Structures are given as C-alpha cells and as structure tokens.
C-alpha cells in the first residue's frame, strides 16, 4: 500500500503505536511521576497524601540504616560484579575449546541459573550451616578456617556473593556468543608470531570482548543495586515472618529490602518513594560514569 502523503504516514504510524503509547503513559510514566510526587508527601497508602516538602529526604539522610543499606548494596555491586564477570569470562573462554562433553559442561554451568531462586536460596542455607553444612565440613577436612557464614556479620555478604557466583550461567553464555565473533585470523596470525596462550588471551580475546564486558558491567550494576530476593529469603530464614529482616547487625539489609520494609511494614510510602528516586539518581550516576570511562577501554570493530 502506498501513501504519498507524509501526514498520512505519520497519522497511521501514530494510530498503530497508540495502544503501546497508552499503555506506556498509564502504566509506566504516570506511576513514575506519581512516585516522585509521593516522595514529597507523607502518603501511607490509606489516607490522602499531605505535602511535606523535603522532609522525607531529610529523614533519609539522617537515618543510619539508610546509609547501612546503601553500603551493603554498593558492597554487592562493587565486590560481587567483578567476581561474577571474571568467573563468567573464565568459564566462557575455557568452554570455547572443542573438548569432549562440551555441551554437557555448558549446560551444567547454566543450570543453577534456571533453578527457582527461592528453593536454591533455602538449599544454600543448609549448605552454609556452620556445624552440619557441606561447605564447612569440606573446609575443616582440608584444615582451613570454617566461618559461621550466615551468623557472622563479616561473612554474610560473602555468602551471598558465593551464591551469586554459582549462578553466573547467563554471563558465561553472553561471553561465549561474543567469543564467536572474534576473527579466527587474528589467532592464526598470533600463532605464526609464536604467541603463547596467555598473550593471546590478553592481546586478542580480552580487547575483542570489551563491548560485551561493558554491557555486563552496566547490567550487573543495575541488577545488584536492586538486589532483594536472596537477601530476603536468607535473612528471613533466621528472623521471623512479617517482621523486619536485616540479618545479623543489619549486614543483609539491602537498599531494596529497606525500601520494601518502609513501604509495606511501616507504611511510609512517602519515604519509600524518596528512596526509590535516590536509587534512580545513584544508578544513573554510576551508569553515566561507566559509559564515560568506556571510551578509554572499549574497542569496537577492529
């Protein structure tokens, strides 16, 4: 069908995208703007919101638990992300060679990610039990210190990183895909020049993978800033249901967990909305910094 007129094209295009636009405005844009409005009120879900200006933000910035939750979340983001990316990258590089049982190994490393997270979190609570858990039994057998993973505040987040490292399947898959795009000719040229495996990795593989690494870094930042499920399950297994959860010395109180508590336990929707917008600013800033720095270390094309 040929329409000669530009305005007809525009009108038809607009009409076709209207359903999506309506959905976007109603269910995404409107609630976002509403939450910005609520962050300046004392909304408690049941009564009409009253305007209180910057009081929520002032309360947040004088709240010790707010800073603790931010610290815990940034801990996961800056310590967890590199661990996951390095492990995923290593797995991808190792499983990029034609070895026997390749399909089996790739599947085996991916499966932990598709298992239901609640069930696996509860399973890990058992594995990490300081007295009867498999991990500590193994550590004691080889005469290494066996800490109390879930009760010692210094080790609770390390346990969560351990669980996260076990679930790095999708990171590995992404890097595997990116590895296929590295031109074989580069490796052949390097072989001719007598380069060893390590040199090939750092001079060819790594630079070629930097776009994929950039993508992963940004994804990990966004995902870890919203970290909730595992922490909620694991700290909930030691605290009580429907009560506030935070783990020993609030070492498992993450930003999203604290936001959830403020919203649904204390019914302080205004404060929770304020927290959401602060997180948005933090995430935006971090992502901007990563993008800006990416010009220095990411190689596109050849």
């Amino acid at each position, binding site marked *: 069908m040929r329409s000669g007129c530009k305005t007809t094209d525009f009108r038809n295009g607009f009409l076709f995208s209207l359903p999506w636009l309506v959905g976007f405005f109603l269910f995404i844009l409107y609630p976002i703007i509403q939450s910005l409005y609520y962050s300046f009120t004392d909304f*408690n*879900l*049941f*009564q009409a919101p009253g305007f209180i200006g910057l009081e929520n933000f002032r309360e947040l910035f004088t709240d010790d638990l707010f800073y603790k939750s931010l610290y815990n979340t940034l801990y996961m983001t800056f310590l967890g992300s590199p661990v996951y990316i390095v492990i995923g990258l290593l797995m991808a590089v190792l499983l990029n060679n034609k070895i026997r049982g390749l399909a089996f190994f790739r599947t085996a490393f991916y499966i932990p990610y598709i298992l239901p997270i609640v069930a696996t979190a509860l399973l890990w609570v058992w594995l990490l*039990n*300081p*007295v*009867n858990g498999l991990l500590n039994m193994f550590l004691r057998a080889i005469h290494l210190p066996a800490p*109390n993973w*879930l*009760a*010692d*505040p210094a080790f609770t987040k390390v346990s969560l990183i351990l669980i996260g490292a076990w679930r790095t399947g999708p990171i590995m898959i992404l890097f595997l895909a990116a590895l296929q795009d590295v031109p074989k000719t580069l490796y052949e040229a390097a072989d001719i020049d007598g380069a060893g495996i390590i040199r090939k990795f750092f001079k060819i593989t790594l630079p070629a993978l930097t776009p994929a690494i950039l993508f992963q870094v940004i994804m990990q930042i966004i995902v870890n800033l919203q970290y909730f499920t595992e922490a909620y399950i694991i700290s909930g297994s030691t*605290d*009580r249901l*429907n*009560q*506030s959860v*935070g783990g*020993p*010395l*609030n070492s498992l109180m993450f930003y999203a967990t604290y936001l959830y508590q403020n919203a*649904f*336990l*204390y*019914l302080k929707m205004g404060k929770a909305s304020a927290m959401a917008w602060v997180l948005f600013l933090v995430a935006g800033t971090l992502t901007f910094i990563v993008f800006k720095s990416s010009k220095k270390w990411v190689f596109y094309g050849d």
Partner: protein
Amino acid sequence: MKKMVLTMLFCFLAAGLVFAGGQEDTAKEGPSKVTFWYLWGGVEGEKVEAMIEKFNASQDKYIVEGLSVPDQQKIQVAIAAGDGPDVSDTFSSLTASYAKKGILEPLGGYIERDGYDLTDFMPSAVDSVSVDGEIYALPISVNLMMLYYNKDLLAAAGFDAPPATDEELVRYADALTKVDASGSISVQGFPDFPEVYYVEHMAFSLGGDYGKPGALTINTPASQRALQMISDYRAKYGLDNILAFNSSGGYMSAADPFITGRQALRIDGPWFGNHITNTLAVNLNYGVAPVPHSASIAGSEKSGQVQSSTFFIPSNAQNKEGAWAFISWLHEEQQMAELSVGMGWIPARISALGNEVFSDVVNFEAFADLARSENLTTFPAFEGQQELQKIVSDTYQTVLLNTAGVDEALVKAQKEADQLK
C-alpha cells in the same frame, strides 16, 4: 475509515452490555453478606471455617463468607482501594499503626450499645488493642512465653526446681552448661536459643516495660539486667561457640537443641509443648514454669509480655453491623475457647481459661496460671511500634555480637526511641 469507526463503536457497545448485565439485584430479601478475609490457611484455616459455619447456622440475619488470604499486603492494598473485607484479623503489633491511619473502625460505640463486657478480658490484652483510650479491635488470644526446662538435666546438676529469679538463672546456667575439650558447647544451660525470644521477652519478665507512647523507656534496669546476663554468658563461653551451637538444629525441627536434650532452659510459647508432645511425640522429661523474674525489682513475679491476635472491622467495610455481630459472637467465652483449643492458643478471656475444652491440652494449666497474673503488660501500642521493635532488636544485636557494651548500646537506643513519632 468509516468501517473502522463503526466496528470500534460496536465493540464498545458490546462490552458495555456485558458489564451492564453483570449487576446483581441488590434489593434482595434474606440474610446480608459479611465478607471475612483471614490470614490462616491449611488446617488452621479449616478450624476458622468451622466457626464461620457455626455462626451462620446460629442465626439467620447474616451470612459470613470466609476467604483465606495469607498475604498481609494483599489485605492492606484491598482495604486501601476500598475493595476490602468486612472483617479481618491481624496482630496487636499492627493495631496502633492501622488505627492512626484511619483504617480501623472504632468499636467503642458498638461495645456500649450492646453492653459488651470487657472486664472479663485480660487487661493487658485490651491495652494492646487500645489507642488513645479508644478500642480498635477485639483480642481473641494472647501470646505468652514461659520457661521450658529439661528435668533430667536439672536433676543431674542437683536442682529439683527451675530457676525463679535472675540470680538463680545465672547460677543454673553455669552449673548446667557442658563444654567439651575443644570449647564447643555440648549442653547449653542458658535460654540463648532462639535468640529472638530472649530479646523480646526477658526484659518484660524481669518486671520492665518500654513505657508509654510519648514517654518510651528502653534504658531501664530490667533491660540492663537482661542484656548483661546474656552478654556475660556469651563472653564466658565464647561467641563463636554459642553461634555454632545455635545453628546446630533448626527451630522446632527434630534436631532442635531442646528437643534433642542439649538445651536445659528455653523460653518459648504454648505451641512448643504441643509440638514436642503431640506433633513429634518425643519422650522428653520437661516442665514449664514462669520465666525468672528479678530478685531486685519488687513485684516482678509472673511478669511478662502479652501480644494478641486480633479481629478488626475496616473503616470502609460495607457491612459493619454484620461484622460486629460476627466478631462479638466469636469473642464470647464458648466460641473463643473452642477456636483457641483448635489453634493451640491461650484465650484472651479470664473466664475462658477455666473452660473444660482445655482439660486435655498439654501444659495448659501452667500457661493459664500465668495468664491470670496481674503483672502482665504489653509493648506500647503506637504508630511507630514496629520501628521501636527494630530498635530493640538492633540494640540487642550489637551487644550480643560483641560490637557494643550494654550501657552505650542502651543509651544510643534511648536516643533513637526519643526521636520516634
């Protein structure tokens, strides 16, 4: 273009007809409906449904329809949207918060109009559902904690009765705790596990409380003593050893330290005895006694904290009369006793404590005896109640995990509590 417009118009008309046809005839004769959403499910839910059936059969003015909704948020959101039930249940720890937000129907008017007698209820239970002198919910049952003790372990150490005061508790703890060569604890002589029950109840049992809304007190002699005792115990036997012991068996599982005879003293609720004797059917020689009171604080015998399960009417309920008829019926002595015995609760009415349905319930006499005590009190009922509870548990944590001393922790906690609204 015309075709498109006509088709859309037709679609809207058809949709409108579908919705219009779904309206019910509201001018019906017969019993009016009362919707009741409750948090229980499974076997407990069935017990609730049995009471609902009884109510419906006992009169023909109202029909109660029950629905099991175990998700507290779902109920909150439905009430906020105006689609909530006529009756629901919650815990006394949330009553003040809900009341301040205007979602609870004040019950004073109904109580006066029907001459509903509240003097039979435990005073602390009524306090837990009152905000600024107004009653916002009816308490059906109370949560009481007592000291469970292993008679064999006590006898082996030369004791023929459980510890009655805090000073005795400290002596008993030393005599009863057994440590093996590497320092790990084989028998725990102090009610350290589960930590959360000690944290929530010990200060109350020593005759302390947390004050009144507007004048909250955390830094009290009772709190200091409670914290000092457990802190000393952990310092003496080693924090790591105690944490390891506390992880060595899941709470109320078959490997639970008390159930497997490795813990001599334990603070727990009425369900614990029922679990040991009936559910797990373990042959454990144990007894139940009031949690030790303070030797130095006068009048602290049989003190304790009361938390209650409550029934409330949302302020935007459609059928408030029906809702009141149902909950006032449910909280009469006979119904309260029947529901309590089915659920393993302690009823909130003093008269119900003597009801014959409880004659077979294990340990009931001990709990009933404590329930009649005049020294029971409750956590202050106000809007920031949950936050105060978090301050208390965080304060205990800093001391229990050895990152703060007792005095500095309590001073800090008092400052934080003073800032609560």
